[in-house]
């Protein structure tokens, strides 16, 4: 279970990206996070795995306060949190399989991994994960030779290599076309339903939220505006989250 308590992030220069945000996510839940661009969604996700250090507040995961964890403890915590990015964030000059194997970096012996030596079991696991997302035949291509949809699947395979208990997905489908978006979301759904992995996913399109999420939270200028099931987002709620001039699309 993940519990976020009074989380606040103020960037250098005084921008308040998160303002006293609190919510809970149950084990095995698919949580969607919605809000305008710049509303603090990315900051929230990055605070959970401490890519960004929060200014105030607590993040309790499995009875452990992540905000107090030391560097060494963070390595152990992060390896259980897979992350999927809007721009895939693959190392474009490396081979696909190396990108996928990078998901194991939190587990393997650092000295051996630096010279690109991974245990045989990890390589087998990588091939299996790539097979699962349908890119097994691309394993030895360079990552930048792949199309956008394929690259995001590499990103998912990389996250799955971590044997995660939680997946943080930062607008995973925002740079993909609608067909690809659904296929990527289905992989996330599959991971959520079959493996029981908690998924926290920031999304732009409400139909995707309705289709995939168990629950949704909404941010506006760093403040939590909404916490409930996707069905509860009616037109009034929508205007509250996105502003008065906003109109629904899709």
């Amino acid at each position, binding site marked *: 279970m993940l519990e976020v308590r009074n989380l606040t992030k103020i960037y250098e220069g005084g921008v308040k990206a998160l303002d006293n945000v609190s919510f809970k996510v149950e084990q095995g839940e698919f949580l969607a996070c919605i809000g305008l661009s710049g509303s603090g969604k990315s900051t929230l996700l990055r605070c959970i795995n401490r890519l960004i250090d929060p200014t105030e507040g607590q993040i309790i995961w499995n009875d452990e306060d992540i905000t107090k964890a030391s560097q060494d403890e963070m390595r152990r915590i992060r390896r259980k949190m897979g*992350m999927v990015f809007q721009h895939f964030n693959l190392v474009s000059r490396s081979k696909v399989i190396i990108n996928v194997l990078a998901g194991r970096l939190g*587990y393997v012996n650092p000295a051996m991994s630096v010279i690109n030596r991974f245990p045989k079991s990890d390589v087998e696991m990588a091939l299996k994960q790539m097979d699962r997302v349908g890119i097994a035949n691309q394993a030895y291509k360079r990552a930048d030779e792949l199309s956008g949809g394929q690259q995001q699947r590499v990103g998912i395979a990389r996250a799955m290599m971590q044997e995660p208990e939680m997946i943080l997905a930062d607008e995973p489908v925002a740079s993909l076309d609608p067909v690809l978006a659904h296929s990527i979301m289905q992989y996330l759904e599959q991971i959520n339903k079959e493996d029981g992995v908690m998924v926290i996913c920031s999304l732009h399109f409400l139909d995707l939220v309705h289709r995939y999420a168990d629950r949704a939270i909404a941010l506006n200028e760093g403040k939590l505006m909404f916490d409930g099931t996707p069905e509860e987002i009616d037109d009034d709620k929508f205007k509250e989250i996105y502003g008065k001039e906003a109109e629904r699309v899709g």
Partner: protein
Amino acid sequence: MKTQRSLLRSILLGLAILLVLVIYAYGFQVTKVNFKETSSERRLTQLTRILRALAHPDIFEYEQEEVDVVVPIYLPCPDPVPDIPEPDTSGPYMVTDVSCAASKEFILLEGVNFQPGSRGPINFVAASGAKRQLENFVADENGYFQVSVQMPTRQPVAEAQYLRATARVPVGAPKFTDTAKVTWDKIIETVFLALLATTFGTLMAIPISFVAARNLMSDVKSSLTSIALTIIGWPLGIGLGILANLGIGEVNNLLTANLGLNLGGVIVGPVAAYALARWALPQVEVEEPGRGMRVTRIITLIVVIGLIILTFQMLAELALSVGQSLIKPLGSLGFLGNFISQLGDVGNMVIPAMVALGAGAAVGNTLSSFGQSISDRLSGSSVKIINIILAAIAGALLFIIVAVIINWFYQINDPVKIYWWPGGIGAVLGVLLALRATPKAALPIGTTIYFVTRTILNATRSVESLVMVIVFAVWVGIGPFAGALALALHTVAALAKLYSEQVESILPGPLEAIEATGANRLQLIAFAVIPQIIPPYISFTMYRWDINVRMSTIIGFAGGGGIGFLLQQNINLLDYRAASAQMIAIAIVVATMDFVSSTLRERFV
């Protein structure tokens, strides 16, 4: 109002133009611009001579056949004027229009029956046998020439003196002159000098460039406890490293006394080290190991490191003895033996330094993580007390080290000034820092290291390698080695800066992604940074090699060996034909390098 403003403008513009004029006038004054000199006759003849010499590079020469032809002449005219005997017209001969002349008088000299195309000097040969060149001649297709020569000023002599033409005719195929051969040797030396400087410079610059990259360093933050313990740990570790190296050296001396034992050691050492390391560093750590297991592992790892150091020491000794014994049997390939034994020497020089630095890093890191865990676990007030003590010690240590270095240069040699004062000031500053900082706050140590590294790099880079070579020439003697060292040092500074700028411009996305997997800093660099910087690194290394080849051609001017040394010598000896040959060689090498490096760069990037 408007006219007033435009008037003001015009005045200002006029003043600006005036100022520019004054600036240029002063520039002419201090650079001693003198166009009159450029057209003075004396300068022009010198210029012509030099340009003509430069146009005749001393590269090819012919075997030459020399024929001396003489004609008697009286200087000054005696009374009565004697007859000159008829010349022998069967071979080449010369006639003059007069049989005697006064000093400084011009006479007409004709040569007949010379070999067509032959050329050479015309000398006045005095009665004493001393000669003086008056003119040069070139015979036309009929073997005829005609020159007007001016008689030299000489003491009056009664008997006949001579004008002598030395006709030179090339025979056989052209061959390389000695100058060309020496130039070739030195050009080879120059190219390899640049190659070595680039290689060593690059190897050093790569790790430094990571430390000098802001995006990598700005995230490195540590608590004061950890920083203070690191500062204490480094010198401690370096000391321990030196001791360890000496201790292992004793074992090494025993083992390398015998060549067989040495060979065996070089083979057994790494195998044992590898096996032990495999046991102590398992591939995947699933469970946190127990305390006993961890201690055993650490001891094993220390043994492994000792074994590795021993192996390297033995390798160096082996290379030294094998290389020396190979020089004779290999004959003309003896330089390979010399290379191997030089590698041994390099090993003997580098190993102690590496061991000391490695031990410094190890102890520094261990104490640093120990400090971090103290800072994480204990309460704020007790951390503050520990911080005050540690910061005082670290500050004192840091200042004393700096003071000892300064003392080495300036030889103050007063214990109060080099130990007590700096130690005291350092301790006070440390205490002040510890009092002011929040006990557990993470201080931006990475940014500090970044700035210190950048400053050192900028300072080093601003000293031209032509200046650096002076110090190295004193240290290792005038020659190409000094040049290579100077160029290598400059390469480190220049490349580290260029490289670090490339690191700073990498995409942050992959960095973030790899960090999110739980990778540590080393893994982050290996997986997210290095793949992104390989193409620009190759490109910059090629570019630097290009620069180094160009620099190595003139580094000899300051004692750095290579072709520059030869060029400078020839310029000083006023041997412009030889200098011209060397300039052409430089031009060819630089142009070729330019072409090769741009081709390679296109291929890699």
